[in-house]
């Protein structure tokens, strides 16, 4: 049984239709995003199932996961706060922002809060250099940008997500 295929049959069909029929492998990236949707990371089972759908070995699929930063092979917080501290953002205070944010949340860069909700990561340029400090938030559902941030505004956002999580 191929869980991904069964669960997302229509969506997978739409994705495959984007590419020539003899080049199904092009769909590996969109399918990895689907696989990540539920748990926020790609499981070994997902590798096998995507391989089955596209005619790839699970090792080939795993190599794609390893090559890109937005695919994850290990669980982390439900919400990944990815702060850009690359050169242009760092020239506008991103390193201090990241340090103070981590200090206030009580974790180190790369760590997850005890409740499993938030992971804070440092990432490379996100093409928002004029709006630093900034971060993107990656969840299973996608990616959102938060620009012109302060430590206070970021902490408020985190509080908001915590409340939402408790209510759901």
């Amino acid at each position: 049984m191929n869980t991904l295929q069964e669960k997302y049959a229509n969506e997978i069909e739409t994705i495959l239709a984007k590419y020539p029929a003899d080049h199904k492998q092009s769909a590996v990236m969109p399918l990895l995003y689907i696989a990540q949707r539920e748990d926020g990371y790609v499981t070994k089972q997902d590798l096998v199932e995507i391989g089955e759908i596209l005619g790839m070995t699970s090792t080939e699929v795993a190599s794609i996961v390893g090559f890109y930063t937005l695919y994850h092979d290990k669980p982390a917080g439900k919400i990944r706060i990815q702060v850009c501290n690359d050169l242009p953002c760092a020239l506008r205070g991103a390193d201090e922002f990241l340090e103070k944010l981590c200090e206030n949340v009580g974790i180190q860069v790369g760590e997850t809060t005890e409740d499993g909700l938030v992971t804070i990561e440092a990432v490379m340029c996100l093409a928002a250099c004029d709006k630093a400090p900034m971060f993107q938030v990656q969840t299973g559902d996608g990616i959102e940008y938060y620009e012109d941030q302060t430590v206070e505004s970021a902490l408020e956002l985190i509080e908001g997500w915590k409340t939402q999580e408790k209510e759901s």
Partner: protein
Amino acid sequence: MAEQKVTGHHILLRHRDIPDIGKFEVYTAQGGFETFKKAVTSMEPEAIKQIVLDAGLRGRGGAGFPTGRKWMFVDNNNWPHYLVVNADESEPGTFKDREIMDKNPWQFLEGIMCSAYAVGANDIYIYLRGEFWQLAHQLDEQIQKLHEENLLGEKLFGTDYSLNIFTHLGAGAYICGEETALLNSMEGVLGQPRLRPPFPPAVGLYNKPTVVNNVETLANVALILEKGAEWYRSFGTAESAGTKVFSLSGRVKKPGNYELPLGSTYRELIYEYGGGIIDDGQIKGIMSAGASSAVIVATEEALDTPMAYESVPKLGADLGSASVIILDQTVDMRWLINKTIHFFKHESCGKCTPCREGNFWMQNLTTRIWEGGGDQTDVDLLHNVAKNIQGKCLCALGEFSTMAVVSSIERFSEDFKV
């Protein structure tokens, strides 16, 4: 966001002159998609290529290659053809394509549609960096709208020409902005560069003739066809026609995108549009093309240099993607190269040994030089390693990684004195 000064030269950032141009009705009320219709129903593809060549449009992704000439390389004995739009925008300091696609999407879409017709492509793929997730969804809806309006699909306007557009999301890899790595990524294999030649216009996506162009480049095309090559050449310099979106970042008061005619000076960009240096400090250096740029010493002469393809090389740098990062006297060049090398070490795809190993060793050295414990031997060794990477890699990434290192050590030697 800081208040943006109206430049009066908006060809690309037209939403700053016409705020609602992101709405389909507003764009069509400006004559939008008439050019595409005219092209498909009454123009020969070869004639369009010639107009774009005559306009002097050059690739805005960084290389500055004449767009019309690239199109003329497409192999007409091998079909189908593809147009792949490079929306991977990942160079640190570059954030122009995002604004164009987000705020002036229909002009971008009409530009790529006219371009696809010119190169004989029936399928366009827009390769967006994975972080542009929301933008990709927005474009998907806009593409859907174009189908509903019969501007995309089969047998357009009663001709035999059919056209479809698909978005494809990357997943966070700078190297995929290199066109052959991008094609590999789209094919579902590792996003590493290919050996060239053959170049994509001969052998590209799925081994078919493919044109890969940057977002900003193609966003010009519909207006060039509408208003003519001569109109476009009335902006800019003889060798650098048109306007360019300059992404200004770093230690300036008003960072942001500014669209100016090519040939405008660094002084105008930094002081007139960017509001000058933070805290009215002293400017120290200019990175003219993002993190992969050599650092220009910000002399009076440099500030008065025209930002054009032919002028910036006189300062020992390149116009590139025109992502201008400003450094002031608070910036220590040891810190700067530690940042850029951290980036390139992370983004090296691992294919070529000089880049993969070289960046590993350069990172060890820049860390030691910046964090303490480094001495003159380390600086000399770093310079030596960087020089030995140059000219030895398949793609430009290896070369790029060395630019800030070599230029900083050579031009800002006082920062490296122990």
